[in-house]
């Protein structure tokens, strides 16, 4: 598909026809979670109606069918991010669990007292707290690279913080609170030059751009399925095979073992070593369906369309007196975080909801970012490939009206 047809795409998302308080839904909370295309919904119905059984266990037909579909989804993820092997794709509950997994396995095995872990000032809590927990457990030190007022990483300061003690860099690919897209390749190359491993938190980036983990050369890449038009409760940890092989397992249980006696346990090979217990079978398969859907549209086409939406929304927002955009990075994804003079984001959120417009109001699980800008919270409109300029017009006129009501 070379031409991008937003109206056709909208028809694939049944929820977009919902009325909210009697108004057409304008769903602009995509950074929190995306809505699901019919293909994803159908894949879950299909599995439970015709193909469902537990995987990797039975010899019976349904188990084989489920297993085949499950492993096919793994291959789809592998191709989607251009990993080298299916063995590098670990299914977890979401980006958060993936980071915790790396912290508690790779981190515990390789990071010791006095070592440093480097993050940035724009991280989501999920890329802060797991490292703080690891630091508490090991005596390592968490370092934070600062950002400027536009919401960009101050690269020179980041580079200076790469020290002999730094053992891991963990940075967000695209910020959920600001929209900033970090210079991932540059960050990774600089860290690698000093022998430092890099984890990229791709939770926000993954639905908005083509991601190639081999080209980026990141050591770990994590994302959640629900932000990629797939189900919630499923996510992916990508890790370079050599690293994953050397890492101890995360959780013990079924599926992650090769042989168990009461004396000792032999762990399973990759990727199963990190997948203890029955996984979210239907959700993995539905994530595969989401990827099929996106590949057919083309990530480049999506990125180009969303850039157009963001430009349009930014220009419109700048015309509103008293509106301040939070996050104006040169490299930015389709997120518009803003504040209004003397109107609290929660009031903005409730008032826009009465017009059928769903935005996020709050700290976006990035309290340090709010502190940096000296605001308790922001309002955030975050766009997806199914949003339209007309919806942005509805948002902007809603904002104008609520400014008038507040006086």
């Amino acid at each position: 598909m070379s031409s991008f047809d937003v109206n056709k795409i909208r028809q694939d998302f049944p929820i977009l026809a919902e009325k909210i308080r009697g108004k057409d839904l304008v769903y602009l909370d995509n950074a929190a979670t995306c809505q699901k295309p019919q293909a994803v919904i159908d894949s879950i119905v299909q599995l439970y109606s015709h193909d469902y059984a537990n995987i990797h266990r039975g010899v019976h037909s349904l188990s084989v069918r489920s297993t085949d579909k499950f492993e096919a989804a793994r291959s789809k993820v592998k191709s989607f991010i251009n990993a080298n092997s299916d063995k590098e794709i670990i299914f977890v509950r979401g980006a958060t669990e993936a980071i915790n997994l790396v912290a508690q396995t790779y981190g515990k095995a390789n990071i010791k007292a006095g070592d440093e872990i480097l993050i940035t000032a724009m991280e989501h809590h999920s890329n802060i707290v797991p490292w703080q927990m690891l630091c508490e457990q090991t005596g390592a030190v968490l370092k934070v690279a600062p950002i400027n007022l536009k919401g960009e990483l101050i690269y020179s300061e980041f580079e200076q913080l790469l020290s002999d003690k730094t053992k891991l860099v963990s940075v967000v690919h695209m910020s959920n609170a600001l929209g900033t897209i970090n210079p991932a390749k540059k960050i990774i190359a600089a860290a690698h030059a000093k022998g430092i491993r890099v984890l990229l938190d791709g939770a926000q980036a993954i639905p908005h751009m083509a991601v190639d983990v081999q080209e980026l050369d990141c050591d770990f890449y994590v994302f959640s399925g629900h932000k990629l038009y797939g189900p919630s409760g499923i996510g992916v940890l990508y890790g370079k095979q050599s690293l994953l092989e050397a890492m101890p397992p995360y959780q013990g249980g079924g599926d992650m073992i090769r042989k168990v006696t009461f004396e000792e346990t032999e762990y399973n090979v990759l990727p199963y070593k990190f997948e203890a217990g029955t996984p979210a079978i239907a959700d993995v398969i539905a994530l595969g369906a989401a990827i099929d859907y996106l590949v057919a549209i083309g990530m480049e086409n999506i990125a180009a369309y969303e850039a157009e939406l963001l430009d349009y929304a930014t220009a419109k927002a700048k015309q509103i007196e008293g509106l301040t955009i939070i996050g104006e990075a040169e490299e930015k994804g389709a997120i518009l975080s803003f504040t209004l003079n003397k109107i609290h984001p929660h009031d903005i959120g409730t008032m826009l909801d009465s017009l059928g417009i769903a935005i996020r109001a709050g700290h976006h699980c990035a309290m340090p970012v709010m502190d940096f800008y000296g605001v308790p919270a922001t309002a955030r409109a975050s766009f997806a490939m199914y949003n339209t300029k007309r919806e942005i017009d509805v948002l902007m006129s809603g904002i104008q009206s609520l400014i008038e009501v507040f006086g």
Partner: protein
Amino acid sequence: MFEDLRDLYQEVIFDHNRNPRNFRVMENADRQVEGFNPLCGDRLTLFLKMDGDVITDASFQGSGCAISTASVSLMTEIVKGKTEVEAEELFTKFHEMTTGKEEHINLEALGKLAVLAGVREYPARVKCATLAWHTLEAALKNEASAVSTE
């Protein structure tokens, strides 16, 4: 344009949001407690002047949404001159009104506070209205630590 919200955002609420009453630091306060709603970042400091068990003065500082600002502003007005027991009773009634647990709430007994009855229909906003009162309760119990709605 916002007809559906008329019950929630009454003119009194806009008025108290624009011009909050008793919005000042109280020198020599007998009680001073911070309230925090981590969900939305609302933060307030409540000051009380006591004469025995009577609240002789109440004031606040902080920032929050219109509902939370109006709620604390109205509260500081209404509790002045009330005893601790009377203030507690008001809190109980206010809580019943905002969480809608009672079928028949005597809105008259709540006076001006009745303008906040609309939050009942907006579960996500109830905490905005009750933060002030949770903070007052902590202040009356002389709890030194900050209170949180979570």
